[in-house]
């Protein structure tokens, strides 16, 4: 097969080397296939793949604004119905465009039942504007607006449980994934696109520039997130959280320290002095979450 038939996100885009969003989007769009329309929100992905007069998209692509990818996708889906065309509608947002400014439009799209799959590439801060905290930023993380200081341990609030919020809309399909476990992720994309109604996939996409790690460590950190239980890949159908399935189970959970110490955004928890209290709190939060999800 020709390269352009397999790779629907063309090489030559402007994303950073080792970008989790780049790998996530490639996996996602290739799983979705050519018969797909993409509606993206403003963010890293958008500015790096569609700089006029070039585009990296080999599928039809539209960008409206930051907070409205879900609404634009709703309109696309409605138009396709009237045109009698059958094709996948994929909305892609970053964490800002999903957890924060785009949450209202997303909730509306879910509630109205549009047959749209919304994929959130979550790199846990406003990376496109230069690493500012958002409601996806995890407890204890440094960002430029949650700095570490005499009166601050970094981000002071836990991460918003966006996928559970999506599941609470009782839509046909909600899943979480990471690019490290690509087969699991791509299977979920296909499943999401096959359901008759809205679907949501929350993808943790490590960011070398914002999380402060070398580009070649991206997949390793993505895997560590799962192995430590910081991020659990799961899926839920029709909002039945009692039947939630963990799709990648960490064999024996590693301590969260393994995950924290390889990322510059948590450096302040280890030096100039070790903040055992904060590390312990993060471990406790992860343990409690894993218990709720039935992960040892």
């Amino acid at each position, binding site marked *: 097969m020709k390269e352009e038939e397999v790779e629907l996100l063309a090489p030559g885009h402007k994303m950073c080397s080792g970008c989790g969003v780049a790998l996530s989007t490639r996996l996602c769009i290739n799983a979705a296939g050519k018969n797909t329309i993409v509606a993206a929100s403003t963010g890293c992905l958008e500015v790096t793949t569609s700089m006029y007069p070039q*585009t990296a*998209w080999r599928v039809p692509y539209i*960008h409206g604004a930051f907070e409205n990818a879900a609404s*634009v996708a709703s309109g*696309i889906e409605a138009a396709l119905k009237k045109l009698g065309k059958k094709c996948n509608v994929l909305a892609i947002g970053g964490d800002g465009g999903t957890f924060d400014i785009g949450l209202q439009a997303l909730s509306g799209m879910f509630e109205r039942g549009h047959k749209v799959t919304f994929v959130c590439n979550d790199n846990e801060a406003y990376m496109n504007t230069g690493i500012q905290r958002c409601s996806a930023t995890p407890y204890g993380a440094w960002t430029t607006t949650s700095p570490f200081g005499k009166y601050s341990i970094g981000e002071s609030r836990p991460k918003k449980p966006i996928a559970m919020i999506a599941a609470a809309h009782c839509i046909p399909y909600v899943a979480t994934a990471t690019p490290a476990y690509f087969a699991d992720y791509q299977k979920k994309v296909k499943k999401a696109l096959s359901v008759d109604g809205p679907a949501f996939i929350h993808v943790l996409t490590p960011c070398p520039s914002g999380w402060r790690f070398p580009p070649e460590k991206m997949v390793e950190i993505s895997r560590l997130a799962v192995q430590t239980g910081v991020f659990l890949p799961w899926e839920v159908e029709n909002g039945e959280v009692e039947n939630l399935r963990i799709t990648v189970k960490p064999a024996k959970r590693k301590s969260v320290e393994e995950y924290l110490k390889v990322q510059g955004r948590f450096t302040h928890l280890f030096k100039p002095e070790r903040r055992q209290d904060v590390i312990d709190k993060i471990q406790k939060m992860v343990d409690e979450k894993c218990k709720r999800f039935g992960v040892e």
Partner: protein
Amino acid sequence: MKQVIEGNQAVAIGAKLCRPKVIASYPITPSTHIPELISEFVANGELDAEFINVESEHSAISACLGAQATGVRTFTATGSQGLALMHEILYVAAGMRLPIVISVANRSLSAPLNIWGDNCDTMAERDSGWLQFHSERNQDALDLVIQAYKIAENKEVLLPAMVTIDAYSLTHTYEIVDVPSQEEVDAFLPGYKPLHACLDPENPITQGACAMPEDYMEFKYAQQKAMQTAEKVVDDVFEEFENKFGRKYRKIEPYRTDDAEIILLTMGSMTGTAREAVDKLRERGTKVGLAKITVFRPFPKKELITVTKGANLLAVIDRNISLGLGGATFADVSSAYINAADRPLILNTILGLGGRDPTVENFCEIVDRSKEVMKTGKVERPVEWINVRKEDVT
């Protein structure tokens, strides 16, 4: 067929006759009857369309944007705070050259909250790249919606358009409206065929790209050129409409201006009241006329200068206020004359904000003031507010 209908019905019927395929809407007073009626048309099969009950006006215009970019005609209705919430996406739709048509029930902006008429809402969007058509009567509302699609979709234009009706004085007021048949409208406005932008997996294109400083200005210049082209297209479409439907529209509509020394410049539903004042004053021998703005974007500079030729004074009446300056129309009108060799004195009156009804007496007062100014030839206070309790504001 002649029907007695309110302004909102005229808009809804006008939109239905244009056969939009996607309508995304959010209720807002006093425009709500429009989505109510259109949802009924869809429910009973009179209109074959998807009706999306969105969760905000921001999503209403965003869904229209997505649908229009997929290749179908779209419609939504809003006003006031709703239009303000759409503000961001109005610019996006114009920049992406998507010929979306919306109606705006002209209503004041908060604070204080007020649901009644003025046109601060549409004036705030005059720089957004949308064509603007203003209705004096319910008939205009219906006719202008149909013509707006035709102008917006012209391949040399490709700009979105808004058609306004004033809160309550049109939205909720019943008038006789001649409703054309579906066949007549179909013959005037063929189905929408996207020529420039369409999301289609068979022919993948990217819409809504980023543009760096070396490219951005050319996009804006192209929009400006399209606005200039629209000046001619508006005339052509108005003429074709007149030939087919027998109703004549003009960008600036004159009334008893031929020998007028003073010309009142109005917009929207206050025009009927102003016309009555003109008749009354003419009976007393005052040489006064009236010019009504129907097309506000592109701004009809040439037509304005032609209509006011020979007049001594142009009294611009604004039901809006650009705080810190004066009326929005006044500012634009003044700029039209900046290099004109022969120009009238220009006065601006602010009235009717937040639904305070303009009266015949108000317009007579404006003419009295104009006469005083003409005596001296000097404009001491270009902007004056009338029918306002200035003594209450200390």
